[in-house]
């Protein structure tokens, strides 16, 4: 491991830290996203922030960026407490935020994008691009932007887009740049250019808060790392204590459980068989068998390729390699419509964007995958309001959906009740295979337990179920068997008592390490 040339310790004693956060807490409804989160960054320091999914990293960053207001806690900059932050105030205080969804205007030049939203020099009332270019050029060169400033950003790589964002932050005189999973979609070579830019920022006195799941990058770049677990900052590692092993132990909490490889050979027949399914760069050669009545969990970090795998099975995207068999016959859905016809259902990750027609009623949202059931007949394709009402009432009763009438628009329902409507839609179809992507995200605890019971009941009735989840305790509660994915591959299979939260998180990171070694060996 390489130590950066920064005098972190001295810097802290000589001047107050650039940013000091302590005791930050935030709850959404009853769910505590953050409690007692603290973090300290010195000037010019590259500071790592790690934690499993749901550890509170995103909420923490949102609080810093002024996008959400913490319930309690203090934020100090240069030793001065700051009041309630707004995005504007955060920017004025010298903090810049770069997210995975980079803010870009595709038709504009590199220079225009760098200056987006910044005050510009003018000459006789007109923007003086020549003068601006003279100011920006040295900063851009230092940042490592090789494309000419007049080039259109359209053809540039994601890595170059990151550099443009970093350059913009510098033009804004940022003293701290927060980077959220910067290498998630970069190749190893592209990542190299980004790391160089980060080191240069550091030596120029700009601090970086580097949020990533990739521990090798964290170890490479950061002198100090804060670990979040369950909304709390549980450790700050630096110097000799900053090792991969210590990081994983702190992320997981407690000792790592070794997975018991216990395979049950008395399972019923295989419903869905997946062999070497691939759609690079997100999914690489995934194979598994799914049995009737089984709840198969898929765990892993955000970005591990789980949702993309689900979309391949559901025909929302086409697999580029590999094959699937459904009930013994070849299965290659070309569209979700084909998958539904073959008896596969999907409860998508983003229920508001991908599953519901929000202004429409509960009954409408239930029927859209079940129109054949609510019409008078094939010859008379008119919707029978009586049948539709009976169908809706059955789901409302069976799933205990809390709703005044079946005519209530779904946008007025709570997250848990909306999710029940989406699940109810598929219950009515009685699919052979049901995939649920993050079924209890944004759902309160009571509804979560009900949704879990529904899933288990459905499995007991013979449906084969795949549950993708990033909630730490969901898969141990729910799944008979868990596949852990990392970087688009299945890296671990856990069964029986081996399914623990610790085992899933450890496998997520371990699989990533195995894979990144392989990647480093790759000449590309």
């Amino acid at each position, binding site marked *: 491991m390489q130590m950066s040339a920064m005098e972190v310790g001295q810097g802290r004693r000589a001047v107050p830290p650039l940013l000091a956060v302590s005791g930050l807490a935030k709850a959404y409804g009853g769910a505590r996203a953050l409690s007692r989160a603290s973090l300290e960054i010195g000037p010019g320091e590259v500071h790592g922030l790690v934690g499993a999914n749901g550890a509170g990293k995103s909420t923490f960053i949102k609080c810093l960026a002024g996008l959400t207001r913490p319930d309690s806690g203090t934020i100090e900059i240069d030793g001065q407490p700051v009041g309630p932050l707004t995005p504007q105030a955060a920017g004025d205080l010298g903090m810049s935020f770069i997210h995975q969804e980079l803010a870009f205007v595709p038709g504009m030049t590199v220079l225009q994008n760098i200056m987006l939203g910044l005050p510009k020099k003018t000459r006789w009332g007109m923007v003086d691009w020549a003068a601006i270019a003279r100011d920006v050029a040295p900063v851009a060169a230092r940042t490592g932007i090789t494309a000419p400033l007049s080039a259109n950003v359209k053809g540039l790589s994601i890595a170059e887009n990151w550099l443009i964002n970093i350059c913009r932050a510098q033009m804004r005189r940022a003293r701290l740049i927060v980077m959220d999973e910067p290498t998630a979609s970069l190749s190893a070579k592209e990542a190299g250019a980004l790391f160089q830019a980060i080191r240069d920022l550091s030596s120029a006195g700009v601090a970086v808060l580097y949020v990533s799941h990739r521990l090798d990058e964290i170890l490479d770049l950061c002198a100090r790392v804060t670990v979040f677990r369950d909304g709390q900052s549980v450790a700050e590692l630096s110097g000799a204590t900053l090792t991969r092993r210590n990081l994983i132990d702190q992320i997981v909490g407690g000792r790592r459980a070794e997975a018991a490889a216990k395979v049950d050979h008395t399972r019923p027949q295989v419903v869905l068989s997946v062999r070497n399914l691939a759609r690079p760069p997100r999914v690489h050669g995934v194979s598994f068998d799914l049995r009737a009545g089984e709840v198969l969990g898929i765990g892993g970090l955000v970005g591990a390729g789980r949702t993309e795998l689900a979309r391949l099975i559901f025909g929302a995207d086409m697999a580029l390699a590999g094959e699937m068999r459904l009930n013994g016959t070849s299965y290659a859905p070309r569209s979700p419509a084909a*998958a539904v016809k073959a008896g596969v259902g999907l409860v998508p990750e983003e229920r508001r964007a991908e599953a519901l027609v929000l202004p*429409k009623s509960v009954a409408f949202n239930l029927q*859209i995958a079940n129109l054949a059931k609510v019409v008078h007949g094939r010859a008379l*394709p008119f919707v029978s309001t009586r049948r539709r009402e009976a169908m809706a009432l059955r789901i409302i009763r069976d799933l205990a959906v809390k709703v005044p009438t079946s005519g209530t628009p779904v946008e007025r329902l709570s997250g848990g009740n909306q999710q029940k409507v989406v699940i109810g839609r598929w219950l009515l179809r009685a699919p052979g295979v049901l995939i649920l992507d993050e079924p209890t995200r944004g759902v309160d605890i009571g509804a979560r337990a009900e949704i879990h019971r529904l899933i288990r009941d459905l499995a007991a009735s013979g449906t084969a179920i795949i549950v993708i989840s990033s909630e730490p305790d969901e898969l141990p509660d729910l799944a008979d068997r868990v596949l852990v994915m990392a970087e688009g591959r299945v890296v671990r299979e856990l069964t029986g008592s081996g399914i623990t939260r610790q085992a899933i998180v450890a496998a997520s990171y371990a699989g990533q390490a195995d894979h990144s070694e392989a990647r480093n060996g790759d000449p590309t």
Partner: protein
Amino acid sequence: MTDATVRPRLLSPRTKVWLGTFARWGTILGLAAMILAFAWLSPRAFPTVLNFTNVLNQASLTMIIAGGLTVAVLVGELDLSIGFAASLHGVLVTGLIVASGLPIPLAVVLILAAGALVGLVNGLIVTKMKVNSVIATLGVGTVLTGLSFAYSSGVPIVSGVPEAFLQISLGRWLFGIPNNIVLMVLVLGGLWLLVERTALGQEIQAVGGNPAAARLAGIDIDRIKIIGFVISGVCAALVGILLASRLGSGTTSAADSYLLTAFASVFLGSATLRDGEFHILGTLVGALIIAFGFNGLNIFGAPTWSQYVFQGSILIIAVGLSSLGRHLAES
């Protein structure tokens, strides 16, 4: 940092309910107020059975073409070709009867099929070539205008139009009710049934409401969008035929202005009874507002330009007020 202040409510819940109601009923109240005002100002000319029948008769063509357009906007697309298509179909139908000597029923059926074909082309360009529907239908509409000029050399086809053809639009075959009105009721009734009561209609609403969700629910959204364009195309063809019959001629550009009136009706309709959703009944109300407005202005001898000013401003005011009311009610 610790004061988690709740933002003060700007409006009381009662005001919000009132605003929500206003957003839904505003256009209908406006229509009623306008009719009452005209009746009060011109008690002899305006509120008569003859005048109301006349208004409805004239509005029928707008209602039919706007009804078809409603289905296109329901699937989430815009169809700007309808006015140009109707003009071309009017020229073609008279040409087929006068120049080619086809029997009237055959010519009508052929033109309706041509309307479906135009819709199919629009739909295929939008769904398969992934062209934005504004561009696709504007392009197709422009091509259709060109074809119309090519076919007629820009000269209206007036001589030799048989009386039987005129009777399609001018006749009163059912209880003395003008045919246009009867046809309008049949078409809009059919479209209402289709959209509100059939399985296909539910799919149409789902695709327009949230295409991503519709697709992941197993609906073939391309198919639904194409159907939406075909329905819009057939309605435009029917209006082209009826207009040619009413004018007694096939004239290039005769129906072009129906595009603006149809869009105004559809969007006025979206501000009616439902919260910003397109629906057939709303479109009907929208077309009535415009028709009665024009009629009233005519009766008072207002100049032609005032009709355009009326149509443009009533659209913005009605949709704007409804949208604002809804926004405040939900704030």
